[in-house]
């Protein structure tokens, strides 16, 4: 059995060049962090690529039932793997900070009037 190409979903092959580069803003930040860290010499691209390949392979071996394929989520996980491996951050620190951010009141980033 072969997996079908996603002809109509978000990963569908477009017939024009009009696709957005990033589906959501956080994807662009995850992308930008990895590239700027690499360019500042924090790690080699080969190291990051190996972590990304490992994350993708793990997802493909055992896809999470309740979480659809998302390339940049795996990209982010790979970046964390590299940084945690180097001791630049710990996974617990990232989780704790994310929890703090989650407790912000709704609309915290919509202070401006629409």
């Amino acid at each position, binding site marked *: 059995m072969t997996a079908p190409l996603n002809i109509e979903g978000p*990963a569908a092959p*477009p017939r024009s060049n009009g696709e957005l*580069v990033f589906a959501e803003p*956080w994807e662009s930040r995850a992308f930008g962090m990895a*590239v700027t860290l690499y360019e500042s010499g924090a790690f080699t691209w080969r190291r990051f690529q190996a972590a990304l*390949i490992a994350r993708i392979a793990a997802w493909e071996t055992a896809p999470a039932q309740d979480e659809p394929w998302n390339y940049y989520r795996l990209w982010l996980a790979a970046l964390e793997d590299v940084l945690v491996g180097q001791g*630049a951050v710990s996974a617990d620190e990232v*989780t704790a900070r*994310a929890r703090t*951010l989650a407790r912000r009141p709704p609309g915290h980033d919509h202070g401006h009037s629409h």
Partner: protein
Amino acid sequence: MTASGSGERLPAALRTEALEQLLTERGLIDPKVMDGLITEYETNVGPLNGAKVVARAWTDPEYRRRLLDDGTAAIKELGFMGRQGEHIVVVENTATTHNVVVCTLCSCYPWPVLGLPPSWYKDPAYRARMVKEPRTVLSEMGLELPDGVRIIVRDSTSEVRWLVLPERPAGTEHLSEEQLVPLVTREAMVGVAKVKAP
């Protein structure tokens, strides 16, 4: 599953923001530098660069020869260079040979000429199936190739970043280089489509 694969589920957006804050506080990244880099890929670096390379190759035989000989150097002549462009190899599609590019293990892609890869290029089904049944996958993507055409699947997993030089379509002999540029699509330069005459 969280982004780290351990502990509670947190939206990737929050985890990304948390990581960016921590790295900024430690002086490991500069958000302004990141802003500039992201803008560059959202607005400047894209398939238009590759289209200019292809149109030049179609109209200048000497350039075409240099491009097929040393992709990175010939692409640099037009001012396109940088990240993921260190080892670009250009392969030519003809009436009898069709090259198509995939990265089976991740998403390697020639950023300077095509920008960042589209979703379908990163999709597990495309990556797994293109090497096994390219003719079927190409057909599903709207490209029917005659049985006599030899298909070569180029896997970008090594250092090499592949760029396909598509066939110049019949009926475009009268068009100038500038008029040819908008005909060249990203899909044609990955090898999942052909360039069509206007």
